[in-house]
């Protein structure tokens, strides 16, 4: 099919689909008048029952923790998928380690990027840790903080030290961190089963609302998810960077 014909047929189909879509959304309740009872109920009880100030965290890591476990496993599976898809294939150099030692791949990184990268690494790490540990108090949490922590290490890559980072075998380390995070999260769910005969029950003393140590298992879940996301992001990035090195050779 020629690009022109594809374009025209696509517009025709999308116009039909769009008409149905608009018809559908016009049947929703007016904007700003949401009447969901579940959300209202959670808003009313979350801060007194669980002593957290971030109700979204309470939903994710307590009331609907089971769903978050599945979400976490989706991430885990996709990382495995990427590693499988990007594995070394027939006809490729099976041992890229040797060639990477003398690779001049990132020599074109400018000094400005290097200096700024090095300066930002510490700040980004601190911000990521802050976001992870305050997930139950202020906006943020394990997922967001984990991505920021991953970005901090990506700054090392960006500053041109990819080869240096590879000597630390980041993929093995990151696999461990990701697995420990995911296992810790599942373990918190099982802990509820052991401590109070209901899986995913918040079984730790919830403390006082607004304090750093409060909310029972919620901050611990944030930490576990933070570890898992941190590992996952780094595995994904280093797998893709590895491909860039292979292609460049």
């Amino acid at each position: 099919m020629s690009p022109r014909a594809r374009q025209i047929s696509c517009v025709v189909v999308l116009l039909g689909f769009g008409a149905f879509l608009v018809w559908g959304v016009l049947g929703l309740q007016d904007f700003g008048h949401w009447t969901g009872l579940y959300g209202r109920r959670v808003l009313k009880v979350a801060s007194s029952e669980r002593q957290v100030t971030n109700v979204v965290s309470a939903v994710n890591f307590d009331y609907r923790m089971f769903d978050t476990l599945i979400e976490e496993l989706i991430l885990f599976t996709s990382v495995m998928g990427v590693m499988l898809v990007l594995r070394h294939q027939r006809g490729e150099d099976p041992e890229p380690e040797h060639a990477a030692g003398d690779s001049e791949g990132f020599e074109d990184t400018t000094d400005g990027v290097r200096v700024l990268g090095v300066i930002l690494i510490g700040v980004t790490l601190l911000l990521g840790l802050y976001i992870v540990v305050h997930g139950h108090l202020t906006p943020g949490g394990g997922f967001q903080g984990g991505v920021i922590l991953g970005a901090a290490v990506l700054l090392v890559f960006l500053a041109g030290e990819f080869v240096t980072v590879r000597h630390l075998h980041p993929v093995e380390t990151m696999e461990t961190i990701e697995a420990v995070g995911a296992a810790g999260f599942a373990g918190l769910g099982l802990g509820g089963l052991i401590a109070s005969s209901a899986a995913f029950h918040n079984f730790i003393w919830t403390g006082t609302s607004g304090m750093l140590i409060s909310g029972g298992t919620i901050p611990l879940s944030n930490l576990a998810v933070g570890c898992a996301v941190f590992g996952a992001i780094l595995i994904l990035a280093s797998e893709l960077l590895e491909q860039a090195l292979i292609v460049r050779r």
Partner: protein
Amino acid sequence: MNHVPYLASAWLMLIGLYGIATSRNLIHMVLCLTVVQSSTYLLLLGVGYRLHATAPIYQGIVPGHRAVDPVVQALTLTDIVVEATVVALMLALAVVAHKRFGSLDPQKLRPLRG
């Protein structure tokens, strides 16, 4: 005026689908997919919004103050995580396609043989 956010989300979905269907580059196609996925964030957040309400975070405000629905916000977070995983997989597949066929143009991909 009451349905503008919903219509905007429908528009994002349509424009993203158009981009996917007419794309000539696999990376561009993945980015179009993220546009389609952003339409779902907008729809979810729009549905959960309540007039004159604050974010569902009770740091520094009185508990019981009118707030937007936290459940759809948690759903949006799930949505974003799923998007990230899908994008990562698609990009990996784009890398493999480029290695095998030497091109990122979806029109130039041939069926895979075992």
